[in-house]
């Protein structure tokens, strides 16, 4: 609402309208007027206020911890002892390559993440396509919502719920026995199968959302034109739909892969002794005894660099131009 009586002169700070309530009281205090005057007058102050806290936060809590981790990964001994000088060494990284106990779980983790990513893509793609292009627009949000609901349950509870399904006396085994397919329960829990099942279950949303938004953006007339020109369903998919949903595939796969590499709680609950994967190895170095921190930091660095490089290469090869995370 424009109140002309409060604005006699040229528009500016001195003619600020009167506000009611606490805003008005605060806005009339001398401290506030001086501060805001400084803000309006000086571009440098404005920039300092705008940039100060964010840059400090990013430097301290986003970059700082990773640099410190890189630093510790190169230390010979940590925590530093007074009688020894803290020397820099590559031995922590060397240990990783010399010991199969560390190297093998790492490879297992990468393979596992790749399998999970590809499976999720194959499972989720038709679903995303169905919701984005086949469902009538007015029902689309409802169809999507039904898929979103389980994801609000959270990581641990959903992992736990998978146990109900796959346990020896879980629903699936009981059902199979009732129908007479099996005599004794198939051990599904604590295997590579249950772990992949659980992790796909956990991460499917990260694939669904980017795919859905990418496919939804494909102009339907393009698909119709391809059909008019005689392309069958398979050709339409391969030549039109797939290339145009590339961005969604790239961001979906990147998200799922990066999360699957570092998945932590699910292997503890769903994986068996044979599926020890890298995060567990790292965790023991930090929790077992405190003096293994340099090794743990080095392994974390390896995992970080390799997983980010893999995703980077993947983006480069598939060539999604703009990768959006959400």
């Amino acid at each position, binding site marked *: 609402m424009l109140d002309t009586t409060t604005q006699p002169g040229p528009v500016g700070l001195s003619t600020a309208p009167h506000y009611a309530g606490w805003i008005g009281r605060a806005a009339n205090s001398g401290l506030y007027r001086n501060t*805001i005057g400084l803000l309006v007058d000086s571009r440098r102050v404005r920039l300092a206020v705008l940039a100060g806290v964010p840059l400090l936060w990013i430097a301290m809590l986003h970059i700082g911890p990773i640099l410190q981790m890189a630093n510790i990964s190169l230390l010979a001994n940590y925590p530093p002892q007074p009688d020894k000088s803290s020397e820099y060494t590559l031995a922590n990284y060397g240990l990783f390559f010399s010991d199969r106990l560390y190297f093998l779980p790492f490879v297992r983790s990468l393979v596992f993440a790749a399998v999970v990513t590809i499976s999720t893509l194959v*499972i989720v793609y038709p679903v995303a396509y169905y919701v984005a292009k086949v469902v009538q627009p007015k029902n689309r949000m409802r169809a999507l919502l039904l898929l979103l*609901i389980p994801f609000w349950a959270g990581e641990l509870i959903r992992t*736990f719920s998978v146990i109900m399904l796959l346990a020896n006396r879980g*629903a699936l085994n009981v059902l199979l026995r009732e129908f007479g397919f099996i005599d004794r329960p198939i051990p599904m829990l604590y295997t590579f199968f249950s772990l992949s099942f659980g992790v796909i279950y956990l991460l499917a949303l990260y694939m669904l959302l980017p795919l859905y938004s990418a496919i939804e953006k494909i102009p339907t007339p393009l698909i*119709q034109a391809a059909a008019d020109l005689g392309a069958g369903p398979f050709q339409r998919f391969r030549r039109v739909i797939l290339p145009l949903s590339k961005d969604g595939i790239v961001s979906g796969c990147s998200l799922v892969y990066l999360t699957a590499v*570092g998945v932590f709680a699910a292997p503890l609950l769903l994986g068996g002794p044979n599926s020890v994967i890298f995060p567990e190895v790292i965790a023991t170095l930090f929790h077992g005894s405190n003096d293994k921190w340099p090794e743990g930091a080095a392994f*974390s660095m390896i995992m970080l660099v390799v997983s980010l490089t893999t995703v980077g290469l993947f983006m480069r090869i598939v060539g999604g131009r703009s990768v959006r995370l959400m």
Partner: protein
Amino acid sequence: MRTYFNDLPKTALGASYWIFAVYLVLPLALMTAMSFKDANFIAFPIGNWTLSWYGKVVQDKQFLEASLYSIGIALATTISATIIGVWIALLVSAENIWGKAVIFALACLPAVVPGLINAISMRIFIRTVDIPTGTFAIILAHAVHAVPFVVIMVLTRLRSMPANLVDAARDLGADPFIAFLRVTIPYLMPALFGGMIFCVLTSIDDFVRTFFLGGYQPTLPMLIFAKVQGGMSPEINAMATIVLVVTTAIGLYAEHFTRRSRS
């Protein structure tokens, strides 16, 4: 477009959707069903049904304490992550600032770094700067994880904001801060609300960061994890079902809110 699809692919697509939906809902439904089982062990089929496990959970002091602790952490996380996130988004969206793309990329770093690495680097960091493990460390780590998502949501909304809204407010005599408070913040509200709900849900759910940064007091996920490892009982199912219902309600409300404000 109906005529352009022969029926086979469409039926197959529909089937894939429904199979996927059942795949998502079934485990949770089974878990809920199991919480009504009238026996001490977890196994199908369910013979007799009972509500007694819920009675046990409601009286379980550990559960109540862990819930309150988790909620407190989630609120503190949400407040700090929202303030920092909006601040970063404003910085990135500001005109004439050098290196915006770099700032944005760095601000999004914790969303890309695997959670475990995030947790470990934070653990190393808090020891370096002498913060003890416990409540504050957990909040810090949760906020670090939540900030990128707030930034992304707020930035998306900021980009759709008409540039002349703030100018109009300034012309009408509002100073920059008042304009921010009375124009920008209300415009950002749907994104802010969505971001806040996201912060609450991820914080309540977070296990790996809490595992590495937590003290002796368990949060809700830590309690459930400990109980699951300590042996199964339908009590855990009842606990999980209560959490499931509450978090789903929060999520549904947020969805309802953001959708209404979008239209």
